[in-house]
């Protein structure tokens, strides 16, 4: 049986990581960059729950996952706040057009 619940979760982790890493490479819009980081974090949350289940410490896995949700929300809020400021100063959210610091 390949479609056991555990395997489905594992596919979910790998799939979300793949989408996230691909997105991180090609995204040019700052808001989308923050969204892509969220997708990556969701993969990790699934992975933590799965790891808890695999090791027989489901409670530990779930509590860490819940903490990650909290911590990560703050990162998203700060990221979006910075994106708002970037839009105000630069008039654009396009990543190549706000890259002025080089060398």
């Amino acid at each position, binding site marked *: 049986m390949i479609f056991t619940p555990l395997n489905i979760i594992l596919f979910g982790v790998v799939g979300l990581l793949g989408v996230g890493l691909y997105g991180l490479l090609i995204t040019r819009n700052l808001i989308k960059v923050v969204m892509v*980081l969220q997708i990556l974090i969701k993969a990790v949350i699934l992975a933590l729950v799965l790891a808890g289940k695999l090791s027989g410490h489901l409670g*530990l896995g779930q509590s*860490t996952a819940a*903490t990650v949700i909290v911590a990560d929300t703050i990162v998203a809020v700060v990221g979006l706040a*910075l994106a708002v400021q*970037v839009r105000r100063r630069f008039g654009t959210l396009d990543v190549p057009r706000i890259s002025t*610091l080089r*060398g």
Partner: protein
Amino acid sequence: MELLNFTGLIIIPLVSSPVVYLAGRLGTREITLRGRSYLVRVAAFLALLAAWVPFAASVRTLFLDGTQEFNVSTIWLRVDGISLFMAGCVLLLGTLVILFSGSYMAGEVGEEKYYAMLLAMIGLMIGLVAAGDLFNLWVWFEAMAISSYLLVAFYREQSASLEAGMKYLVQSAAGSVLVLMGIAIVLAQAGTLDMAQITEAVSGSAVNRLALLGAGALFMIGFGVKVALVPLHTWLPDAHSQAPSGISAMLSGAVIEIGLIAMLRALATLTGFALSWGILLMGFGALNILYGNLLALRQTFVKRLLAYSSLSHVGYILLGLGIALSAGIELGAQGAFFHVFNHMLMKGLAFLAVGALMYGMFLQNGSHRALKIEHLAGAAQKYPLAALAFSLALLGLGGLPPLAGFMSKWQIFVAGFQTQNAWIIVLMIFMALNSVLSLGYYAPLVNLMYRREASPKVAAGKPLTWTIALPLIVMSLGVIVLGFFPGLMDWFTVAAGRQFMQMFGK
């Protein structure tokens, strides 16, 4: 819960952070603007001074031997030689930076937020070095990172600061995803997240060694973003050059080293790979030294030059740790920790001295410009103290003999030769040559300050205040005294080095 032990060291800055923020939000009906700004500065400084009391108490009771455990409700802290050493570094630099910021940040919009975030960052860094659980380590690390994003982007009306903050946030967040993935693998394999228990659990035969190696690689890359290992360093020059000067000193002198400690703690839980980590650390170290030096040679902005020189100094530290791990030479780890302290002192001094010059030449004239190298011309005529402090810091960083930087580099150098390994000796010679190469960008700055006519910017500069001068004097004295008496730090670095070897089971 007792405040007179290590927990007090974490709790005092963390609790005073919101208090300082609220003090800064008092209405203008109760207090004048000037008085409010003064209140915020004094409160922040007093809070950090108070934190020295639990530090002194915990140094005395522990006397840097073995591990002590404390708890704040269910969070366990494990305090050992490395924790105390790093806590001391962070506290010393933090106190001087807050004193320096008194005039430097006076009258900025959101001054209270600056002090609140800085205090929170200091408390979180001290918490991180004492974390006893892999997941707690990540939580401290992430919280510290969040406060540092906000501090880097503090001048939010400047587009370059925003860009630097955004870059820092995205790269650091991607790194922390990788760290969490590594934690998930360790949890699946070991069934626990307590660092001491992981070490026991993974030495059994039931674990998948390959998965653990993968977890270690994820830790190395994930924390490596914060440490600025060379291919992952691109946020560093932007963030260090765009942040307020006090924060540049904190980032360069403390935050990247704290990232390194987090990485070592996580790697130390996975036993049996010490040789691989040692070789990898040395490889990254050599890369960092060369890349940092070459890029620093072609900079036009002073703070950006110092940021690239941080890359190369992280390299020296990595080399020392790598020698200790791969060859089992404890002197290498001691030298590395000594260099952590000296780098904190010298790079902190360099950034603060640049900040002092920027304060006199630009901030006092109402401008937020970045300091270019040519602006330094003749600075010694108008700012003898800042120029002297900056020169001492630069020559120390370049490793000129009677200064602190030489002593720690020498210690690493000697440790490298003790290994009697041809490859490591080649690396040591490479390091010594690079140290000479680095004088190629440090020495012209000194020359420029002392041997040229004063530029119009310098001539139009305003005088410095005592709160800016005092940290410069203290740190300059430190650089000189440690150069003549390097043994003064032995009691601290030896304990940290021993703990490092124990951590990796050597």
